[in-house]
């Protein structure tokens, strides 16, 4: 067989075209501000976007089942605020225990989503919209207008300190676990199956309801952990933590090639998508664009990336058709 052309390589693998987008982005930013490519800076991209990276994995699972979860940052705030308050009022200070508690809260929130979506046949966007209001509201209610501040979370914040290994370790473990789970375990493939064709999955004996419920529970778990991490990294807990950032997570997945209609998407793509989002937010203040232009440019880049991808896919398909003999 003759070797694949670059065009075929690109159309064959969504990740490949993302890598190119990424490289172009890095080159442009790197030329404008060479210090962008420094080790510290790249390390900080991961640290500052740990939450996006982490939650994008859960969103990948949810979106693979053709669902969506817009309650994640509310869950994050509720879990984060809870463990912040536990420290503020000197109930718990053990880092590990705090993670366990945060994760448990997240699992609870996620499970509620899952059970209502799976058993109640409620559209995911609606159910999670309800919980978006509920958990955010609850974060405010329990905080009673207080924050947990740097002083309250003193020892705990060392875990997520700039330069501490904690967040990176969590990220690496999460990505490795999910990479293996999604590709090499039955559970992972079930998620794909449910999203690809729910009816078929049901008929071939996959417990669709259970799969759906677990997917949202996983999402909740990651959101809970992200809440704990957020408190650690920013050394504070506020009820409006990460407000509106669920859209960043969704955008990361979509840029990374996860189809909102379900059944298509990969851990590698998700990683690249989150990385692109991280680079955009890290680079904008560094390339001397006036502050007021930053949002506009961020929006244009996101839209441009997704549209560009559609255009390349279309061109590649056309190329393939031309090659067909008649």
């Amino acid at each position, binding site marked *: 067989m003759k070797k694949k052309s670059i065009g075929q390589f690109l159309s064959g693998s969504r990740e490949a075209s993302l890598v190119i987008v990424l490289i172009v982005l890095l080159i442009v930013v790197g030329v404008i501000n060479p210090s962008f490519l420094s080790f510290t800076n790249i390390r900080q991209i991961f640290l500052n976007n740990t939450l996006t990276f982490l939650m994008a994995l859960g969103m990948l699972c949810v979106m693979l089942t053709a669902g969506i979860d817009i309650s994640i940052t509310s869950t994050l705030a509720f879990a984060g605020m809870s463990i912040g308050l536990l420290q503020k009022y000197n109930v718990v200070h053990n880092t590990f225990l705090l993670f366990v508690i945060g994760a448990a809260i997240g699992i609870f929130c996620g499970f509620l989503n899952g059970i209502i979506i799976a058993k109640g046949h409620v559209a995911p966007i609606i159910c999670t919209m*309800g919980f978006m209001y509920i958990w955010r509201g609850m974060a405010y*209610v329990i905080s009673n207008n207080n924050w947990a501040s740097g002083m309250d979370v003193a020892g705990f914040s060392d875990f997520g300190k700039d330069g501490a290994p904690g967040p990176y370790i969590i990220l690496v473990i999460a990505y490795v676990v999910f990479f293996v789970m999604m590709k090499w375990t039955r559970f992972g493939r079930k998620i794909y199956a449910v999203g690809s064709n729910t009816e078929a999955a049901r008929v071939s004996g996959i417990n669709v309801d259970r799969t759906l419920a677990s997917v949202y529970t996983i999402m909740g778990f990651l959101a809970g952990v992200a809440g704990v991490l957020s408190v650690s990294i920013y050394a504070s807990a506020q009820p409006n933590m990460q407000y509106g950032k669920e859209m960043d997570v969704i955008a990361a997945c979509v840029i990374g090639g996860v189809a909102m209609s379900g059944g298509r998407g990969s851990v590698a793509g998700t990683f690249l998508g989150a990385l692109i989002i991280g680079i955009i937010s890290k680079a904008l203040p560094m390339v001397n664009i006036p502050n007021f232009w930053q949002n506009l440019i961020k929006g244009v880049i996101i839209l441009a990336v997704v549209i560009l991808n559609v255009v390349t896919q279309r061109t590649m398909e056309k190329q393939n058709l031309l090659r067909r003999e008649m």
Partner: protein
Amino acid sequence: MAGRSGREISAVQKGSIRSKILSWEGALVLILVAVNILGVAISPNYNVENVLREMPRYLAEIFMMFGMGYILVLGDIDISVGALVCLAGTVAVLSSNAGLPFGVAVIICLGVGLLGGMLNGFIATRFTELPTMIVTLGTQIIFRGIAEVLFETWGNGGGTASMTDTKGLMLLATKIGPFPIAFFCVLIVGIIMIVVLAKTTFGRKLYAIGSNKTAAYYAGVKVEKIRFICYSVLGLLAGLCALFLLTATFGSNTTTGQGFEMEVIAMCVFGGIATTGGKGNLIGGFIAAFIIVCLRIALGQRNINTQVILVIIGLMLIISVLVPAISSAISIRKKRAKA
């Protein structure tokens, strides 16, 4: 003419008054009544005058509810409208401050809304592979981004701009009896939008697209043209929303319209319009909008923590969408018990 086998197919609809009352819209009317009774019971200040006085700010959102209903029936979603309200309002304020007469500012406000909607529609129909959620997420950031740039360049310093000549706005904010003008505008727009969706071929096509886009296309429905129109209409209504919001704020800033998209979607969903498309009607959305508004007003007058109000609305949303599932589960259980 019966078929070859003599089989007759009934064409008589069985709907009765009873089933109408038992429908979701019927339930919504009851809930609306209940909410108002609750309001009167918990707050001594809950009366027609006060409710109508507090309403205009919410009325502005209801305009968009109608447009969003169309988009949801299509099976699409538009989360950029909150930002579009901000952009339209901002441009209107700045152009008025630049010396244009109020009438022109009004047209500009609606025009910017329309253009924004058309941009959404253009991208959504040109790149049909993209989920509309991501398209409108992009334009959401862009619309607000443009507004920020405008504030910086022509605003009152920082991210805010206020209208210097407020005569026109005052006029729009006047009341006819206890009713604000916005109330009548909502009614008129609402009736038009409801009738178009329920009674016309255009409305039927929306349901067709929302239920099965491919089949609709094969049946000669101009799918992309209709989607484009719906996005444009929603944009125009966002302009209208911006205009009436201006009568309450006399200006705009970077947070204007924040979260409106979700509130509007919540109204639609609570009114029985499914986000999966092809289901629900605007009468439900219309009643649901007033339920939410009245509830907010009533609880607000009792000085209930604003965040608790959000929790209550979230719960209402979830329970309302669970109702069909719960009732069918109960009826199945009943049937089983009988068998």
